[in-house]
């Protein structure tokens, strides 16, 4: 007769037990990003900022869907349809959405991630990271990832969603042509998200308090836009390169018209003039903003963390 199996007592609360790490050690950036977002989600201001972003998505979605459904029904009733005009209008909706959402995302990222580095410094939590096997690169990647997920959720994902909806509900004759709008729309959203993330994290690295960083970031963005646009209207075209959103529009419109007469360019005949004259300078302007943010983060980490 077989022996009955021995009972296995598992008493976890008694004494110290050793532990062996299962598998390869995980890298720190993802837990850092996830924890930062978890903490942010517990704040009411985060939910308010996200609601604001959702509202902009809703407005753009209604405009886009309304246009396309109208065309779909009118094409079904035998009325004539101008494909270039429809696609051009859709592109305008995307451009308008990216432009508006760039600013609402700036507010959202400032509210959610404004303290990502500043709060660590204020709370003396840098030691919490660097006393563990976390390198300065891991820390920077973790913070950038955490902050970057905000515009990813508010800017990139809705852009892709709107585009998919547009392709899905457009009249069959337009569906294939609308596919081409995905490239500039996605590029615009990704570039915008990248610039917002790097500049915000850089600002947080320089700041002392979360709230100061958030307010300062949004205020700087608005002041740059106001002053830049004003100077451009007064004939000082160079000032247009100081406005990140204007640089972004320039690059994206140029991307749309690259290789003219491309299919995409033919679809949007109503966007002929670039906001800034020089596309390369606009791209350089965006890269300078991003580099300034990354540089500030690197400088701060070198200052505060000896190793």
């Amino acid at each position: 007769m077989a022996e009955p199996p021995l009972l296995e007592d598992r008493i976890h609360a008694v004494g110290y037990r050793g532990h062996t790490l299962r598998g390869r050690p995980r890298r720190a950036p993802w837990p850092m990003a996830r924890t930062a977002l978890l903490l942010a989600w517990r704040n009411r201001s985060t939910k308010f900022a996200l609601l604001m972003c959702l509202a902009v998505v809703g407005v753009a979605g209604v405009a886009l869907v309304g246009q396309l459904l109208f065309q779909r029904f009118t094409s079904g009733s035998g009325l004539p349809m101008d494909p270039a005009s429809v696609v051009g209008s859709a592109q305008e909706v995307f451009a308008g959405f990216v432009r508006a959402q760039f600013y609402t995302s700036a507010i959202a990222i400032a509210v959610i991630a404004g303290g990502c580095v500043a709060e660590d410094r204020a709370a003396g939590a840098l030691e919490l990271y660097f006393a563990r096997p976390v390198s300065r690169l891991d820390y920077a990647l973790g913070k950038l990832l955490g902050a970057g997920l905000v515009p990813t959720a508010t800017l990139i994902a809705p852009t892709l969603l709107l585009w998919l909806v547009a392709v899905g509900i457009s009249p069959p004759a337009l569906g294939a042509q609308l596919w081409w709008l995905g490239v500039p729309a996605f590029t615009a959203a990704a570039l915008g998200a990248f610039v917002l993330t790097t500049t915000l994290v850089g600002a947080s690295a320089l700041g002392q308090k979360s709230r100061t960083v958030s307010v300062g970031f949004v205020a700087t963005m608005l002041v740059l836009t106001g002053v830049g646009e004003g100077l451009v209207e007064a004939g000082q075209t160079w000032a247009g390169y100081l406005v990140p959103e204007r640089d972004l529009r320039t690059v994206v419109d140029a991307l749309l018209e690259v290789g003219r007469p491309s299919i995409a360019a033919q679809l949007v005949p109503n966007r002929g003039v670039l906001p800034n004259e020089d596309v390369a300078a606009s791209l350089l302007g965006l890269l300078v903003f991003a580099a300034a943010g990354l540089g500030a983060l690197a400088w701060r980490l070198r200052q505060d963390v000896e190793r």
Partner: protein
Amino acid sequence: MLLSFQGIRKQFGNTMALADVSGAVEGRAIGLLGPNGAGKTTLMKVCLGLIRPDAGQATVLGHDAVADPVTVRARLGYAAEGPGRLPGLSGLESVAYAGELCGMRRRESLLRAHDMLDLVGLDESRYRPVETYSTGMFQRVKVAMALVHAPDLVLLDEPTSGLDPESRDELLDLVVHLRDHGGPAVLLSTHLLHDVERTCDAVIIMQSGAVRFAGPLDDLRVQRASEYDVRTALPAPALQARLQALHAEVTPGGRPDQLRVRLPAGAGPELLWQAAAATGDAVVHLHARAASLEDAFLEAVGGRPVVAAPAPSAWPRPAEPPRG
């Protein structure tokens, strides 16, 4: 070898935080003892690779902490003295987060965090945000955070500071438990001699950035065993002169026939009888002074280095007192 230092020097502005620290220590629980500003925290941060010394080499668990700090930190746990908390996280989340930062998977670190919070005795309050914790509760969380990834050596920087007597007792009991029940080795930084005496089997005494003693705690006590209160049959000055000629340190006692004698290294109490006989005197009372760790510590930080007993070559030589 747990820890070894070679000529570590670190200067912050005009302040010499570590002045040519050398030595090696082994043990299950090591006290890092010294007054405030002695360089204890700086030495710990050098071990962690958080501070790069101006000169010298620190080897922790066989790894070069200066050249490869990330590898060293993976095997160390550190509970800093400062606040170091992430406001908004609960105690449980803080400990699990610390585990994830050390490479653990989320589920694995959560289970382990519960274990460690049980160990340090934090009950249902582990679900509350850390900013609502008392000092004692947060100290427990910090220790759990240091232990969660099962390090080989845990560095506790002033863990009992600000604690009430009961919490302090429990924390010291925990250190003893780790020492005696297969936990990681502990380096306990404190300025409280009693904490070291109760929990540690070895000690590093620091003052003004220099190591004044490093070795087993018993060796420190042995130094006191060579000190005697002596009463003589005749007035003592003659014997005093004779003993001083034999390199003993002699101070007069409360009466003319009393002396307090510290014998030179390697000499036994028979030297006292021989000296008394040589001066025509006699020893009528001899009392070996109690091996008080407090006296030894005060002596060590008071300017004269305590000589470690001849022991394993691993133990460091005492450093010279800082000049000037």
